[in-house]
């Protein structure tokens, strides 16, 4: 999943980026409000981790603008200011969660995962989809009670489809979510991951919607080949 990190402090930013990458997220990190604004306008991020003390603008202003534009992407606010008034202001402005510095890296990861899960409308990290069972917390997948090994990208792709809740995900969204801005991505890289996923978990798991993208197959049709929906 793609995390947009906006944090002005170099040491803190690099730590969070590496920490989230280790936990399996794709992270793009920006240090100013202006860069963050530009990034979210062009990237399909799954979650934003936003520091409030930015050098060029207050993080809350940025958040307010996003909410005014109707962006519903979950936002986890990071701040070193612990006054109750600051926290209330953050949540009222549209933050989904609030983490006070210094925080525990595990807590940050857990909160990011919880926010993603809630944004996808699930209360539990365990998803069952026909014969496929997915644990978003431990990033494990089972097919007919047998654990299946997935690569990081494959898992991300599967999670992205699950979070779309039956909606269509296009190639660009997959690329943002899987690779962010950093890597040069081969045009058929996503197709390769989809091919592997179908092979490992069942052809009907992912339906191709011609000209638009992909969506999750119905739970009952998972073994019915990989043709168009």
């Amino acid at each position: 999943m793609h995390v947009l990190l906006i944090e002005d402090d170099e040491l803190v930013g690099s730590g969070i980026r590496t920490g989230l990458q280790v936990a399996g997220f794709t992270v793009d990190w920006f240090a100013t409000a202006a860069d963050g604004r530009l990034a979210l306008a062009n990237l399909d991020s799954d979650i934003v981790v936003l520091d409030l003390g930015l050098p060029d603008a207050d993080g809350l202003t940025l958040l307010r603008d996003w909410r005014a534009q109707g962006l519903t992407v979950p936002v986890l606010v990071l701040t070193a200011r612990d006054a109750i008034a600051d926290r209330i202001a953050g949540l009222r402005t549209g933050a989904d969660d609030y983490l006070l510095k210094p925080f525990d890296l595990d807590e940050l990861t857990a909160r990011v995962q919880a926010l993603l899960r809630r944004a996808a409308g699930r209360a539990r990290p365990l998803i069952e989809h026909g014969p496929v069972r997915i644990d978003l917390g431990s990033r494990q997948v089972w097919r007919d009670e047998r654990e299946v090994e997935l690569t990081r990208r494959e898992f991300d792709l599967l999670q992205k489809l699950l979070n779309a809740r039956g909606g269509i995900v296009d190639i660009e969204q997959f690329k943002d979510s899987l690779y962010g801005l950093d890597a040069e991505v081969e045009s058929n890289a996503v197709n390769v991951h989809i091919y592997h996923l179908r092979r490992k978990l069942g052809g009907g798991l992912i339906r191709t919607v011609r000209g638009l993208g992909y969506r999750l197959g119905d739970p009952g049709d998972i073994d019915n080949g990989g043709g168009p929906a």
Partner: protein
Amino acid sequence: MSLRRRLLLTLGLSFCVLWALAAAWLYSDLRDQMRQTLDQRLAASARMVSGLVAQLPEGAWTQAGQPMLSIPQITGVACQISSPRGQVLLRTHGDFAGKLDAPAPGFTDRVIDGQRWRLFTYVQNGLHITTADRLAERAALQRNVVVVAVVPFVVALLGSLVMLWWGISRGLRPLERLRDELSRRDPKTLTPIEITDAPAELLPAISTLNRLLVLTGDALAREQRFTNDAAHELRTPLTAIKTHVQLASRVPADQAHEAMTHAAEGIARLQRTLEQLLTLARVEATQADPGTTPTGTTSIVDTALADLIDRKRVTVDHGSDSVAVDVPRELAAAALRNLLENALQHTPGEEPITLEVEAGGREAIFTVSDRGDWPAGQSTRRLTQRFWRHARSQRRGQGSGLGLAITASITERFAGTLDFTAQDGGGLVARLSLPRANHASR
């Protein structure tokens, strides 16, 4: 004692005492006047009788047998006419035999049958005419006069006391409103006090109070901001340390090493910020004590340079011999060192910075010039604001944002001046002037 009670007591007592004195004065005056008037009337009646007697025929006194003439009883007044030989010719009261015999002309007081009388004797042609007035009547008259005079007095006095009470209560109402307003307030609210139709005497007190409230509010807000800023400045490096230490245990060895390096950077930053905060706290607790700690400018420059990492890049120009300034050496050096550190930090590469020291008439002036990254024409107003850093420094985690604030604090404490000028073409000139010792103490 409340102001109201004090006013009521003072004014009420003075009223009562003054009115009582006036009443006593009036009473004694009235009494004298009355006695005088009644005496005159007593004398006048004696003369009137004498006039009547003089008109009687010669032999009227020697009428057959009964020389005594007695008028049917009248109370309170009496009269007796006696011949030169002491023979009583006429008497109003038959039973007053010998009791009205006057010793000498004029007024006399006498007790007759247990009652006090006032007598007047008038002598004409050898006839003694004595008129008498019973004093009990006079006393009754006097009592009536007193009652007539005193009752309105007392009523007026009571009325003025009531008016006094009403006037004072009314006059003190704004004070009571102020008290109510103050007692109703939450101690945390610092909004100005507003009292409707406050009297002119109360306005200065209210405006002073309001000014104080505003100042307190500002001071509290400043403190709060400082605490918040300090929390932010301490938590940020702490976050970096914690994050990188945690990372070190879950990444491969080469990355772990890098994480530990980052953590160490965070620790250094935390340490720097803590030290600067402590310096600031110490400076703020220092009392400027002129004349006790003169320090030479050369010694200040040497001390400031000694702790500077990049001191080779500083070109020092002593424009005059060392002069003494009225600031303890450690603090003066800290103030100067912060200016130099700031200049070095914002001057890229090996570019030198210059420090000029001059002696003015009343002060010593340290001028630090750099050709650093400060944009030409940009306002230098925020430079000494606590925790303010240029966006670039903030991003790189350089500086604590307190160095120049400390310099400003030291300067202010020792009555010096500090100003910054943006150079044309970029860079900054900082000018620190500290008062010279022998001048300041005079």
